[in-house]
């Protein structure tokens, strides 16, 4: 794998003004995406995964949203400094996004073909005739049978899985360098999900696209990603390679996440549930956001946010347990991955 950075987030902070006060949805996120890799972002609902990806796409509406701080470097250029016009040129062309719900992502009154051609005509000097040809090619690429006929059909004539293929075709139309997929298979059945995951892997191999995959399904992560970032309470609390996160996790929330899932290939008597609920981001905790639910929390955790500790060239964890002054704690056996039965 190349280590060339294509996207880098530095100290990204995003807030929303709401009736109940400021929601600090993303609270200082650092993240790197390398060329040609798939980076998965996982974490609790409301932890800031979608807001982070919308910020990359320049899709945070203001008001109520506001990017308070940070940089989003795409091939070294800070997208946050771009004008509206400049960002529109990047969006859909260099960076594109697949949204979670394939039913709402498509315009019900517009032919499938026209929806694919829209981006092509906007971003590339291309005739209508050529755009249509390319649309048919793209439908074939994502595995729609009879693409030359189906290009003239409407979304309601497609099944859920086929619609998600079309959404992927639209996202890929201009050969983007980065594809952000926000829960691309959550609304789909397992057998259709398997088809879509296969398709995404295939496309990455063929076109070298870098992918940010947002999901809560650790199975999907294990299937597709090379690196993983774990979010909690608006922060990334651990990052590492796929194997590091699954086999050598260091953060108690990552332990909890792996423990609370039953294993298909092993017997689990009792799931280890994480007690409590995630923090209210209107009053974000001063210290570690996981402290109220963490079985290992110490006094220092309540008031001070832990710094990142690197345990390898690729793994970083924000937890006081990794401080040399902290007691040594072994991960619970319940994380249960790594071949044991």
């Amino acid at each position, binding site marked *: 794998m190349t280590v060339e950075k294509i996207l880098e987030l530095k100290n990204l902070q995003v807030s929303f003004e709401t009736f109940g006060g400021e929601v600090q949805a993303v609270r200082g996120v650092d993240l790197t995406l390398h060329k040609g890799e798939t980076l998965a972002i996982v974490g609790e609902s409301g932890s800031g995964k979608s807001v982070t990806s919308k910020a990359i796409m320049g899709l945070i509406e203001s008001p109520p949203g506001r990017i308070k701080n940070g940089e989003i470097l795409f091939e070294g250029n800070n997208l946050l400094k771009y004008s509206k016009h400049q960002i529109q040129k990047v969006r859909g062309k260099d960076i594109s996004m697949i949204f979670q719900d394939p039913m709402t992502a498509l315009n019900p009154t517009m032919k499938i073909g026209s929806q694919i051609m829209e981006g092509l005509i906007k971003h590339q000097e291309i005739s209508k005739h050529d755009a249509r040809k390319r649309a048919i090619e793209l439908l074939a690429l994502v595995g729609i049978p009879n693409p030359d006929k189906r290009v003239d059909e409407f979304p309601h004539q497609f099944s859920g899985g086929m619609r998600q293929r079309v959404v992927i075709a639209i996202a890929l139309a201009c050969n983007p360098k980065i594809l952000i997929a926000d829960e691309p298979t959550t609304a789909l059945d397992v*057998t259709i*999900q398997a088809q879509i995951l296969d398709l995404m892997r295939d496309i990455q191999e063929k076109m070298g696209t870098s992918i940010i995959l947002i999901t809560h*399904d650790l199975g999907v992560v294990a299937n597709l990603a090379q690196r993983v970032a774990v979010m909690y309470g608006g922060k990334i609390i651990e990052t590492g390679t796929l*194997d590091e996160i699954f086999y050598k996790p260091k953060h108690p929330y990552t332990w909890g996440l*792996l423990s609370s*899932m039953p294993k*298909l290939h092993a017997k689990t008597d009792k799931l280890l549930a994480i007690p409590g609920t995630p923090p209210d981001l209107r009053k974000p905790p001063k210290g570690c956001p996981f402290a109220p639910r963490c079985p290992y929390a110490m006094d220092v955790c309540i008031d001070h946010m832990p710094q990142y500790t690197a345990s390898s060239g690729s793994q970083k964890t924000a937890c006081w347990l990794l401080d040399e002054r902290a007691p040594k704690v072994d991960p619970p056996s319940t994380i249960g*991955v790594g071949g044991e039965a």
Partner: protein
Amino acid sequence: MAAKNEKLLQVKNLKKYFNVSRKDVLKAVDGVTFDVYKGETLGLVGESGCGKSTTGRTIIRLYDPTDGTVIFDGQDVGGKMSRNEKKHLSKRMQMIFQDPYASLNPRMTVKDIIAEGIDIHHLAKSPKERMDRVYKMLETVGLNREHANRYPHEFSGGQRQRIGIARALAVDPDFIIADEPISALDVSIQAQVVNLMQELQEKQGLTYLFIAHDLSMVKHISDRVGVMYLGNMAELASSDDVYDHPLHPYTQSLLSAIPVADPEIERTRERIILEGDVPSPIDPPSGCRFRTRCPFAMDICAKVRPKWHEAEKNHWVACHLHDEEIKTEKV
């Protein structure tokens, strides 16, 4: 755990059709047969629209069956029933719903939500007894007394699902149909709710029909698992048998399609990727419902509907590949 061999529920050839237009009949459930034993958890899995919820809703008589019999604790509850009889059934059989947001009335306090069944069935002799029962339910599901006067919107998803469980338990039922009780919850919260359901089962000897599409969770919680496809039951066996030794081609592909949260397994696993989509239940394929996607489909599969039979001990399947008569005929 005691031996689970006493049948609490017997479902025979259950059908539920919906008239969706003047001409079209949608066969949501098209002849399913299974038993549920006292004290067990029977999991029901299958893809969206295969008829899981309709099966549950027909058993509990939210829908009237189109055909078939349902026998609950020796009593026929699948035929014509008066309102009163249905009410009586709801004392013994309760349902937990998927959406903890939509299934609780936002204008009612938690105590009134939980007490609804107590009131309907006159289970409390005085207001004090009523409240005592509510408090006990709240404690049972891991909430506390202070929560009684609050409204649903003040609770998180996991807490709301606990309220839904407390409501179902308040009438002291024997049988609970849980329709995707954890699908709307975060992974870490799912484990809380599943653990709670298991504890309650052990303590109170409850019987569950647990409907879900998360196969790992179903395997974890169920003693036996039924796999549905397009209104039919494809396979039913002990949870270990279904997962370690699936007989039906659909179960096999379903299992091979689930991504497993273990990178090593994901890298080395062989997958059967099914082509195409589930056909419409308005105009389902002739013969075997799965034949349009089945990698092993034979001529007979289009002509004859496979028999639902016990191919191995306690292992039921509907597939010609496992039908002795057809196997011997072919040889």
